[in-house]
């Protein structure tokens, strides 16, 4: 499908003449989402949209709050990777308190926290959510396609997932006090050292975790290559990629410059100071979604959209910082001469990152700086700060202005999933056109739309697979709004 043909499916010319099909809820992407399709009389897809239907108003209600409350408040945006918001906000406020560069101890401790989160979130996504689709196939009996099904069919795989996630969560707990919404970072540093007993606790398990991460890369690789042709075609399109890299081009999750590469791997910009993000990235509002559509300013909103997250980061990095992950990256990049474009390759890239996180955790656990040294730094106050971090799902931007009374005056956030908004919509249109268009709707066809969205790891899809299969109901409605037919897939996977 050409990019123009794909884009044409964003808005049908005469929507009032078409049948509406709603997939609701499809999955939640930092909130509630649904897909609507408009079909003509021959069931050909004329329009396909992923709508984000939740709105919080955070940027407004944060105004007037003391700035030190922010790292605690913002993590409640997302319980799946609260550490990302906690750290991105604190990084922005480091600048406000005049400490853009932390003490070595503080920076290393924050990195440990961040890598723990990368590990737990990636494990959750791959094992609890995505693995049922990947292990059983898109057309498998839907009742099996959930984590309970994986536990029954492949207990050795499922249990490793549960334990890897636990390890990552334990890293978070020992530093921040609890697994979800703990507090560790403060503007200018962190609150405490890693206790020796906690270090020993983690050291005891890191070897095993590392081993399982290697196995996970192997599983993701095997599943991709076993059906390479289909995986390359599914939800496929070319895009630009954006993410942080270290000054030398090395893979980086915590601190670096922004790099944007085009679909062929050519540089659009590189090592941009994240504080200048507004010169390079803007967001477009569309009336049918609460999630905005970011794009690279120099390329404009039609050409300038891009992808973030594991695939973008592994594509953009010149190398990985650790030996096993670097080996895995080199192997992965053999898939294609330029950047790897396949939507389904996200899973493989995600596992390479998880392995990298485990290696980085091991390095840090052996570093005496985490046990002692200065925790806090301060400097000259400035009114404004930007904090950018690579969250599990991609680049996360927090931007605050603070007034002379220490109150927040202005806030701007671009969360990871937002960057992928156009990409997810493009994938939905591609899958709808290729697999659904002109066919009778079946459960297996509908599942393909979810599979495409899920590759981008939208935040709230977790429980879809973790706690039983998501029921799905699709109504076929004629132009007058009368229901023509209904397909229903229940919680146990049966179709009625």
């Amino acid at each position, binding site marked *: 499908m050409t990019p123009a043909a794909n884009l044409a499916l964003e808005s049908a010319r005469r929507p009032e003449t078409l049948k509406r099909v*709603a997939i*609701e809820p499809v999955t939640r992407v930092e909130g509630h989402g649904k897909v609507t399709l408009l079909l003509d009389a021959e069931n050909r897809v004329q329009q396909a949209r992923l709508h984000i239907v939740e709105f919080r*108003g955070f940027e407004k209600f944060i105004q007037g709050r003391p700035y030190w409350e922010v790292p605690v408040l913002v993590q409640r945006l997302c*319980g799946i990777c609260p550490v990302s918001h906690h750290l991105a906000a604190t990084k922005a406020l480091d600048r406000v308190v005049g400490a853009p560069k932390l003490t070595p101890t503080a920076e290393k401790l924050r990195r440990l926290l961040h890598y723990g989160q990368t590990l737990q979130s990636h494990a959750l996504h791959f094992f609890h959510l995505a693995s049922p689709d990947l292990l059983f196939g898109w057309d498998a009996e839907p009742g099996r396609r959930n984590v309970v099904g994986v536990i029954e069919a492949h207990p050795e795989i499922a249990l490793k997932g549960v334990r890897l996630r636990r390890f990552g969560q334990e890293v978070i707990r020992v530093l921040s006090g609890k697994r979800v919404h703990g507090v560790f970072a403060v503007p200018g540093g962190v609150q405490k050292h890693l206790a020796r007993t906690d270090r020993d606790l983690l050291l005891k398990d890191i070897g095993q975790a590392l081993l399982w991460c290697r196995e996970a890369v192997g599983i993701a690789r095997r599943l991709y290559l076993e059906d390479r042709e289909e995986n390359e075609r599914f939800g496929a399109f070319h895009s630009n990629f954006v993410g942080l890299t270290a000054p030398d081009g090395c893979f980086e999750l915590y601190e670096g410059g922004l790099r944007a590469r085009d679909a062929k791997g050519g540089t659009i910009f590189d090592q941009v100071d994240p504080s200048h993000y507004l010169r390079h990235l803007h*967001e477009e509002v569309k009336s049918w979604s609460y999630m*905005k559509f970011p794009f690279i300013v120099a390329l404009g909103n039609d050409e300038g959209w891009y992808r973030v997250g594991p695939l973008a980061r592994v594509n953009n990095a010149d190398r990985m910082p650790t030996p096993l992950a670097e080996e895995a990256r080199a192997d992965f990049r053999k898939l294609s001469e330029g950047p790897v474009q396949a939507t389904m390759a996200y899973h493989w890239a995600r596992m390479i990152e998880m392995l990298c996180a485990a290696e980085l955790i091991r390095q840090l656990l052996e570093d005496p700086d985490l046990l002692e040294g200065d925790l806090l730094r301060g400097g000259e106050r400035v009114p404004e700060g930007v904090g950018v971090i690579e969250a599990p799902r991609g680049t996360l931007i927090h931007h605050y202005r603070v007034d002379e009374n220490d109150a927040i005056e202005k806030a*701007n956030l671009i969360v990871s999933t937002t960057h992928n908004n156009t990409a997810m919509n493009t994938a939905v249109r591609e899958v709808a056109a290729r697999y659904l268009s002109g066919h009778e709707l079946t459960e297996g066809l509908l599942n393909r739309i979810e599979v495409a969205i899920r590759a981008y790891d939208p935040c709230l899809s*977790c429980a879809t697979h973790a706690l039983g299969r998501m029921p799905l109901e699709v109504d076929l409605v004629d132009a007058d709004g009368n229901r023509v037919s209904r397909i229903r897939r229940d919680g146990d996977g049966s179709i009625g």
Partner: protein
Amino acid sequence: MAERLRVATCSLAGCFGCHMSLLDLDERLLGLLEVVEFDASPLNDLKRIRRPADLGLVEGGVCNAENVRVLREFRSHCRVLVAVGECAITGGIPSMRNGFTLKQCLEEAFIRGQGTENAHIPDDPEIPLLLNKVRPLHHIVKVDHYLPGCPPAPDAFWHFLTALVAGQDPSLPKELIRFD
């Protein structure tokens, strides 16, 4: 096997952290699956609970018309309804927007946002109507139990669920009642 406790869960205006805390039972989840059967996922619409559930766990407060509809249906399909976490119990952090008008919040994000182009407030009929105020569950439906915390600790879920399965009073012991 004895009939398992049928549990449905859903997330309204919450961050999903409460569901994550439930997953933080780790290996205990496997034991839980022997006595508990999850009927509907957090993403479920209530129509999809096929027969009444014994227990409904609801995360998040109520911020739009869709939440109201889902919550009412959830209530009518669950024998016992539990407000899980601060958001469900008080409205939580999302209810901080109650100090502003809805218009102010929408304008800040979509009109006054930095780097925002084609600035306008999304208004497509596919997007649910926002309520003027974010509300806790008990403003809309009867709530039988409250699990405090943001999120409640995994042990709180464990205590509550295993007590219910055993037919005992599920009230939390003092040390599990935490609000952070």
